[in-house]
């Protein structure tokens, strides 16, 4: 920052290390910020839609992520610019709230910024642009509400849910199995959903992945999958009608938490100590047997002696099960977590219809299935894939895609309104906003029109990514919508031959779309409002 001089030619320093700071102000600051925001949007633009491309990102430790999910890409990019960080936050908050549409929201914000830049060049005050955008976003959100359609579903007829999830999955790498994955996601959500309160706790859905096998082998397990095996290879691999003792205490003599020492000065004492230890083991196993447990799941380990004893007494056991899984097992089997052996009672045992160990491929990897549980409100989605390459990337991307699909299903349970995808919603909003613009006096009118134009950029990007002529396609669809006054026409990305998104079954959730518009507007307003950037020059 340049030094200021007074009338007598003496410099005066106002800020600490003033000469090392840079300052951008006025229109320059806005231009620079807009450029940064646009740059981020440009990166994601090509990922939009069913024909969107993936990004490969290499982390600092050499780990590679391949993803199509906007939030993931931005998170991994590790951007440094402050405005770019705002865009990352934007995508992330869409992810938190909706879980889907993370790419779309950034593309939209980018388009809004681009339009704002044009308006700035015309000499419109940035705040008035922002205000115009805000008015326009309200118009758009209301319009969406009007055109949204509700569909009814219940536990048995969930076809519309599946269709909507498929729309989400179609842009992902896993789209060849989208039908089966969508069904899995919907069934999983329905299994844990509280339809009366319209609440879904996604924590109850566990997503596990294991490299190997095919994507088609991905399955939904009504129960829990634990990446553990029986503590002893000779223990039974199948337990039907299992009564499960869930323990947080180790199979070993209890230890006081206070520091302690046992003085042993005679052989007899040593003998008693040993005997007592053995007796402990014996009692513990006996206690489990007494209450009727047929399987022991233990948070901690136990040594070989205990292991042997358990095998001998024909009591299968699993050791080193993590706290989170333990909790899930307890919820699923209706059991209680027991902190010490004395408190074991038959009522505290969890019940499962079938517990089995399953091995995969030729490797020695085994997993434990706990199925037909007393309480089915905990499910696991078990993802396979990776084409046998030992490649985790595919599994990770599938997990993310499933997460998106789960979120969509959850949102639909919360609010069963949908709008049409494929850019149809954006196009009809654009028309509505454009029409509304004329009603506003004042400079904001221009900003509102700019907003309408920015909305067009989403279908435009869709068309572009699908290898269509963007401008021609968009104008064709637009005129079709106006002519027939039907808001269902969108971009035919998959070249099915119709623009009618109802026929193509391309749906998106209403709240997701509304959120996109509101969030993008909010962030753009924030960026436009900055007219002064003071930073240390190394930035």
């Amino acid at each position, binding site marked *: 920052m340049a030094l*200021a001089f*007074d*009338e007598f030619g003496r410099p*005066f320093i*106002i*800020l*600490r290390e003033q000469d090392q700071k840079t300052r951008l102000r006025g229109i320059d600051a806005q231009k620079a910020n807009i450029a940064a925001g646009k740059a981020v949007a440009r990166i994601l633009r090509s990922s939009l839609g069913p024909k969107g491309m993936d990004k490969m990102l290499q982390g600092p430790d050499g780990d590679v992520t391949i993803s199509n999910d906007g939030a993931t890409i931005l998170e991994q990019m590790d951007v440094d610019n*402050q405005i770019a*960080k*705002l865009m990352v*936050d*934007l995508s*992330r*908050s*869409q992810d*938190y*709230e909706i879980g889907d549409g993370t790419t779309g929201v950034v593309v939209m914000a980018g388009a809004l910024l681009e339009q704002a830049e044009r308006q700035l060049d015309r000499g419109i*005050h940035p*705040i*008035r642009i922002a205000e115009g955008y805000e008015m326009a976003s309200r118009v758009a959100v209301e319009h969406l509400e009007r055109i949204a359609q509700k569909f009814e579903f219940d536990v048995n007829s969930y076809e519309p849910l599946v269709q909507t999830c498929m729309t989400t999955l179609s842009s992902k790498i896993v789209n060849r199995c989208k039908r089966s994955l969508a069904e899995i996601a919907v069934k999983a959500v329905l299994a844990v959903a509280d339809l009366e309160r319209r*609440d879904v*706790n996604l*924590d109850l859905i566990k997503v596990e992945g294991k490299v190997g096998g095919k994507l088609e082998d991905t399955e939904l397990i009504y129960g829990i999958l634990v990446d553990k095996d029986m503590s002893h290879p000779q223990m039974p691999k199948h337990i039907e009608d299992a009564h499960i003792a869930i323990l*947080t205490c180790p199979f070993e*003599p*209890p230890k*006081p*938490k*206070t*520091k*302690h*020492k*046992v*003085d*042993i000065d005679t052989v007899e*004492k040593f003998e*008693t*100590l040993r005997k*007592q230890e053995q007796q402990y083991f014996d009692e513990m196993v006996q206690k489990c047997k007494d209450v009727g447990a047929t399987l022991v799941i233990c948070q901690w380990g136990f040594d070989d002696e205990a292991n042997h004893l358990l095998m001998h007494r024909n009591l299968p056991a699993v050791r080193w099960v993590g*706290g989170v899984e*333990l*909790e*899930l097992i307890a*919820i699923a089997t209706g059991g209680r*977590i027991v*902190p*010490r052996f004395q408190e074991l009672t038959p009522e505290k045992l969890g019940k499962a219809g079938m517990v089995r160990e399953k091995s995969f491929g030729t490797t020695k990897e085994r997993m434990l299935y706990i199925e037909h549980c007393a309480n089915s409100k905990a499910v696991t989605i078990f993802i396979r894939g990776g084409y046998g390459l030992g490649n985790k990337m595919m599994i990770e991307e599938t997990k993310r895609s499933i997460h998106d699909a789960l979120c969509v299903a959850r949102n639909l349970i919360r609010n069963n309104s949908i709008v049409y995808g494929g850019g149809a919603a954006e196009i009809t909003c654009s028309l509505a906003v454009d029409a509304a613009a004329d009603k506003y006096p*004042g400079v904001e009118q221009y900003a509102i029109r700019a907003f309408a134009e920015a909305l067009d950029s989403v279908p435009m990007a869709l068309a572009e990514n699908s290898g269509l002529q963007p401008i021609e396609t968009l104008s064709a669809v637009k005129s079709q919508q106006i002519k027939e006054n039907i808001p269902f026409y969108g971009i035919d990305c998959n070249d099915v031959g119709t623009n009618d998104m109802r026929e193509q079954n391309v749906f998106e959730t209403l709240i997701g779309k509304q959120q996109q518009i509101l969030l993008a507007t*909010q*962030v753009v*307003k*924030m960026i436009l*409002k*900055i007219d*002064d*950037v*003071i*930073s*240390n020059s190394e*930035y």
Partner: protein
Amino acid sequence: MASMMQPQIILLKEGTDTSQGKAQLLSNINAVTAVGDVVRTTLGPRGMDKLIHDDKGSVTISNDGATIMKLLDIVHPAAKILVDIAKSQDSEVRKSSWILDLFSVDDFVGDGTTTVVLLAAEFLKEAKPFVEDGVHSQNLIRSYRTASTLAIEKVKELAVSIEGKSVEEKKGLLAKCAATTLSSKLIGGEKEFFATMVVDAVMAIGDDDRLNLIGIKKVPGGNMRDSFLVDGVAFKKTFSYAGFEQQPKKFDNPKILLLNIELELKSEKENAEIRLSDPSQYQSIVDAEWNIIYDKLDKCVESGAKVVLSRLAIGDLATQYFADRDIFCAGRVAEQDLNRVAAATGGTVQTSVLGTCEIFEEKQVGGERFNIFSGCPSGRTATIVLRGGADQFIEEAERSLHDAIMIVRRAVKNSTVVPGGGAIDVIPRQLCDNAGFDATDVLNKLRQKHAMQSGEGASYGVDINTGGIADSFANFVWEPAVVKINAINAATEAACLILSVDETVKNPKSESAQGDAAAGAMGRGRGGGRGRGMRRR
């Protein structure tokens, strides 16, 4: 004592920078004006934000005068005074900033920081030609004081009392004040929404002075319309152990137990050691330890509490124990939150007094789960859960709400309001500039209105929407009178203070923090020590 033959007396340490006289005075004025220029554009509903990187690389985007001034890290001694007045206007800083005793300490307002800085800078700018012409600065100071008294009287005259109105009416009026403050902020688009929320929150805590009873929780994600007010307490789900999910998550009229102990199986004394000679005693020690914790847990259950909160950890054993008995527990609750719960539910930490509330529930808010206590009997707390698209966004929203809360509290206490939208020359001018209007034109119109004999034009201000002038009062652009008075007062005092300084002695850098040293020298060393310059009220 000084004879002609003696060499020059060295009074100050080597390297000390002194400058004095009229030149110094002008230089100080220039510095202040420069600072004023920085915050100038943030004024009013069309004001802009600043993005500031600090030394550590963290970034703030703000529209709040006090925040910006604080972050600017100003070292110029005269300019620093401006920072201090900005702070004094913002109640956040009640620290013993030396300048505080200049202004009556009660009058912290929390809003109008930009106005103060701008006014002070403008006063000084106006003074500059007079100083150059050789008017003695003490004369200027005296006239400024007189002028400010006049201005304050005028404000008082204009003020309209909201005392004696019905609660509903009052709420509406307060919301107007809050909306005026918020209109210049990032969340201006939703000002009505937030204004009502702020008024409800302030009304909820009533006359209580403890501002920390209004909690503001930030949850990234969602849009700002998803923000909501809880008439009670809300806090984020704390770290939980296995078994937590088996606890019930919703209660009607639960009893709430507040603790400050650890509920965990652990050694009672850190450095105790037990020596056993007989291995068979072993079990008894183990049992004794378990009994201690079970004893504690039993007492919690016996109390009849359905919700157990502790400031310290609640371990996995306790979690599962409570789960078995259908009790909800949360450990490691932040102290502030716990105090708020205590105030809201009427309970006391660590006694037999249990609190209660109508509904307790664990709810999903964005990506987080929140514990929400609502419908509390004593109703002396409120929590605002803020949502927004980006971290920066929520931070700024929080600062804005802070301002609005302060304003509403002022209005509640002093219950007089004045029309906003510009009362003194520089303010409307800047408002116009920021809104992109022809400042001179609007100002002349305003002048004409205000000069009208009948006095009915006195409440006219700038109309940001159309670019003309409008009756601010009718348009509900209101500010509490005390804010305006304080702003005029503070700005005048700052201007007078700077005008009264004619010499700066700056010690070489070695001392502690350079900035503090400079400010200290300004304040105490000069004013107090040598007995000239500064006048304390």
